[in-house]
């Protein structure tokens, strides 16, 4: 292989990211060094996710005001001081760009998801007859009730999943999936021995992607609670979600 040919091979290898050129010049160590240097250079991002609640009327007025995100956020912070606004969620995650970051403030709850039906013997030779409380004759027989046969795990609480990338000049792109799960009640189906229960969860959530300036609060949207968690009297509450992503100096 002449020098010209070797140069061509190295150039092509470099273009497609193959370690041909590196290996030809300095060996495997050079490749490892390059990889390590890339990891160090990846910026770290801090992401703060906040949710504020306020009555529908005030929320609609604020939404229509056409404020910048910073002013919108400022109004909510001012509302916190005079107690017209309530902070519902505060979460923070920090990590390298390009990686998926998750935060969770929750507890795992395992609930029945499937039930086996009640069982009777194939043959009941005789039923015992007994007098009930009202003097009625009743028969007694062997039987088992509906049995939970499969379970599922659910995390109750707040969770945040973020993936970030930097566009340059302090602009950060984020893919976000925050959610807030609350256990509401048990719903009952069937009767007597066949009675089974299923949980009901409130789960307001957002799935979206945005671009934002580093260090500036950005409005994400609304994540209001469902009807079951709204006040019984008065106006319903609207929850505004904000995210503030900041590039952190190493």
């Amino acid at each position, binding site marked *: 292989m002449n020098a010209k040919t070797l140069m061509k091979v190295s150039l092509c290898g470099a273009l497609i990211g193959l370690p041909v050129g590196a290996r030809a010049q300095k060996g495997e160590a050079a490749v490892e060094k390059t990889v390590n240097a890339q990891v160090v250079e990846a910026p770290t991002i801090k992401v703060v996710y906040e949710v504020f609640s306020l009555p529908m009327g005030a929320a609609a007025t604020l939404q229509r005001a056409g404020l910048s995100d910073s002013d919108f956020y400022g109004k909510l912070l001012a509302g916190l001081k005079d107690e017209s606004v309530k902070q519902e969620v505060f979460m923070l995650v920090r990590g390298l760009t390009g990686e998926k970051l998750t935060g969770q403030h929750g507890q795992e709850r395992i609930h029945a998801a499937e039930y086996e039906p009640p069982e009777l013997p194939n043959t009941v030779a005789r039923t015992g007859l*007994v007098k009930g409380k009202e003097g009625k004759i009743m028969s007694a027989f062997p039987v088992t009730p509906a049995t939970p046969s499969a379970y599922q795990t659910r995390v109750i609480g707040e969770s945040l999943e973020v993936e970030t990338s930097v566009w340059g000049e302090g602009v950060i792109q984020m893919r976000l999936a925050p959610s807030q799960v609350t256990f509401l009640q048990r719903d009952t189906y069937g009767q007597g021995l066949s009675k089974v229960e299923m949980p009901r969860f409130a789960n307001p959530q957002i799935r979206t992607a945005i671009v934002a300036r580093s260090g500036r609060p950005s409005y994400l949207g609304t994540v209001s609670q469902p009807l079951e968690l709204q006040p019984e009297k008065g106006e319903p509450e609207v929850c505004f979600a904000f995210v503030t992503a900041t590039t952190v100096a190493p």
Partner: protein
Amino acid sequence: MLRLCHGDDGCSVNPSKLIEMKLKYLSMIAVPFFAGSLAVSAQEKKAPEVVQVVYEVFSLSEAEAAQSQRDSLTDREAYAQMTSGVKSGKVKQEKLMALRVLGGQKATTSHVSELIFATQYDPPKLPNQVGVSEGGGSEDGPSLAEIERGPGWQSGSFPATPATPSIFDRVNLGDTLEVEAAVIAVAGKPEKLMLRMAANHTKLKGFDVWGQGLAEGHVPWLSKQKVQSNIQVESGAPILVGTVSRSNVEQDETQVERVWFAFVTATLVKVEK
């Protein structure tokens, strides 16, 4: 895949020819790859646009709603009429949902609870054979107290088990908004927004009972309002996308029927400096 061949195994390509082939092959891969990375670098300079979508629902009496439509108001005027009506108390704001989304991508917000409900029931069961009952009292059988205390025994008129829920499904109760927005640019300047949206409002009204006695099964009764649309809008201009009124069956007969108007306002958002 390239294979290094030797003359004695039937391959007649010599090593220098093979290197030339490798170079040709690698350049075929490398050139488009390199061009692709150049394109990515060019895109990286300009961050994608963010669109804010605000979805609002207002309710007013049927007569006033019909009149407002007969007046042939523009969407902007109709929206202004709604917001001023909220202040005077004639109009009620029923829903407010908002969502930011990147141009060309789909985003959702859900203000919901998840109801798990039975969709199938196993029928009641009886034993294959039942013997003759003995006695008229408690001489041979266990006492009622024993039955109540002990496991695996049930008192009733006959050995049988009721219908059992066997298969379940999930439904979201509450409000969901799904949007997909695209920015239409003319000569590099964003002119209009293309919006694909779907809003759903689901409420649990109660449970319907079917069957009787041991065979009774319960299934949920849901109220649903939905609007799904594709629209082209100017940034910041409210648009009436449709009505999401409750059906006549659900409305309270003692009160005046109300019409729910759904408005969408999509706005191009600039990243703050």
